């Protein structure tokens, strides 16, 4: 890193990439993978999500991870964003819920309100 300009360029690239991830891909799924999330089963949730997408032959959904933001009661926490719509946060997403979320929200575009954390 040698200059401010270089940093600025990376920032623009990163923002662009983020947007593309939202635009080019159908949806984004973010799993909270901090210790609290993992203790509550986030690794299983992540594995099921990846497996389910593969099984259905879906390749235009971006799956990433993030830290555990503090809602320990609701871990594992999963965020879903379809297209450019609002990012929805879900709580207590175990393997079963993860599959349902892919089916209903990611593919069906329907927010599963009862699992939403606000």
């Amino acid at each position, binding site marked *: *890193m*040698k*200059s*401010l300009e270089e*940093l600025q360029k*990376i*920032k623009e*690239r*990163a*923002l662009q*990439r*983020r947007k593309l991830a939202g635009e080019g891909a159908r949806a984004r799924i*973010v799993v*909270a*993978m*901090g*210790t*609290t999330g*993992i203790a509550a089963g986030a690794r299983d949730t992540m594995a099921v999500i990846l497996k389910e997408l593969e099984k259905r032959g879906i390749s235009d959904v971006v799956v*990433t*991870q*993030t*830290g*555990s*933001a*503090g*809602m*320990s*009661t609701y871990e594992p*926490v999963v*965020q879903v964003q379809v297209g450019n719509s609002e990012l929805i946060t879900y709580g207590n997403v175990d393997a079963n819920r993860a599959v349902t979320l892919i089916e209903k929200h990611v593919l069906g575009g329907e927010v599963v309100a009862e699992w939403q954390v606000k």
Partner: protein
Amino acid sequence: MAYRANILINSDAPGAEAVYGAFLDELQELALRDEVQVLMTSGLGGQGVATQGVDAIVYPDSVRYVNLTPDDVARITEEHLLKGRPILALTQAAPEVAPLPPPAPKEVRVVLRNIGKINPFDIEDYIAEDGYAALAKVLTTMTPEQVLDVLKQSGLRGRGGAGFPTHLKWTFARNSPNKPKYLICNGDEGDPGAFMNRSVLEGDPHAVIEGMAIAAYVIGAEQGYFYVRAEYPIAIRTLRAALEQAREYGFIGKDIFGTGFDFDLEIRMGAGAFVCGEETALMRSIEGQRGMPTTRPPFPAASGLWGQPTNINNVETYANVPQILLKGGEWFASMGTEKSKGTKTFAIAGKVKHTGLIEVPLGVTIREIVYDIGGGILNDKKFKAVQTGGPMGGCIPEQYLDLPVDYQSLASVGSIMGSGGFVIMDEDTCMVDIARFFMDFVQDESCGKCTPCRVGTRRMLEILNDICAGRGQPGDIELLEEMGKSIMHGSLCGLGAGAPNPVLSTIKYFRHEYEAHIYEKKCPAKVCRALIEYKVDPELCIGCTRCARNCPVDAIAGAPKEKHVIDPTICIRCGICKQVCPVAAIDVY
């Protein structure tokens, strides 16, 4: 009988008595005493704004008269109360009330702003959130003195517990003449139930790295260390990946931003000793020695790691720094209280509905944290106390629910801010048992260097064990208090100096519980097994034998259809009988 009208007079205003008397006289005159009631009240609700004078509201019309004198009363009584025509000239026009702003969010996320938002394994995700912009600004446009000025203005104080002003700490290290200088990040978060730092390291590691690089520039260090406990493997893995990326992108390493500034970081893992969170013990541990505290002075800023000037802050302190330099000291100082600026993260644990991590401006009340953010006590039980600041903090009872959470206020009630543990207890918690739990913890973690701490905590634990086991004796409470004070004064580091705090604060606020244990051999919260007894209510027992069949020690006698009896000499107070009883005939006494 029902009155057709009521007059409420604000009794707080001078002259209210005279107006009251005038109303009574006038009503008497017009023979309205049976129809209109006059009342003096402290403060008026209803529409309108209180004035300095005597105000009165006439119901049911809700007409508010303001600044009344006894001379006004005759007109009001005749026109309004008799003829039903309010005298608008004496009322206050309802002020234009601006709609209330939406309630300020209780949580403000500065340190936690990126957590749950960015991918910690992708440095560009951090850069997209203005990451490393503060470091760029500092290195290319600011002198170390200017950075210190901003920090001073911000009022940032150490978030590790003691709350020492950060700009002063950095100034001391900067002014130390010896070279090389070192920088340490204390990530040895050992308080039971606290995980603020872990979350930051796992969710936003680059914020801490950036804060450290800025600190290194200010004090003139070229080498820094992360000291993270080995119990945090995910934090360490995340941090390791973050350091690699930061090095690859040139945010740490040689000639950062082309300014000739060199700085690099390494991770050192703690092996699980609680006392290694104490700064001098921590430095000995990094040096490869046994983790035991050493005397201060010399302070780390003069002679720290390997005898060199060293600056040591905790994870949260460093994580605050980039934001302060980007948004300015004033922005940070606008949050919090007079002497405790900014926000603080807390790990909410215990008997509360929403446990987890929060970040609030300093100065919010305990009530706001417990009820507004925490959602209240589990099963809607009663709040009993909150333990702040980890095992060396104190228990704060219900009467201080409205205490603002800041460094001074917590200290004033015998507790500490600590790193931000916040363990909430309900009515079912035995305070003697809690004190015993924490004493057991610190006794276990005492490094053994100072005799008062090593032996004293052991003796205090033994007394507490006795009290909980029903072997408490008169004089135990006084002995605990005396020993507690001696340990505090006779120990080198914060562990010994704070170890008696949970005991002393529970004695201070819950002495009656200690007394009940010792003199009545009763545990009011029904927790201490030796002091409780399970009994079958013969009125309710239906003789189903379920309790007897489930009892692991065969302490329950009784044939089918007969009343059952528990033998207290055999009973181990496991509570299984109470759980399985279909008619709730078994209770704890």
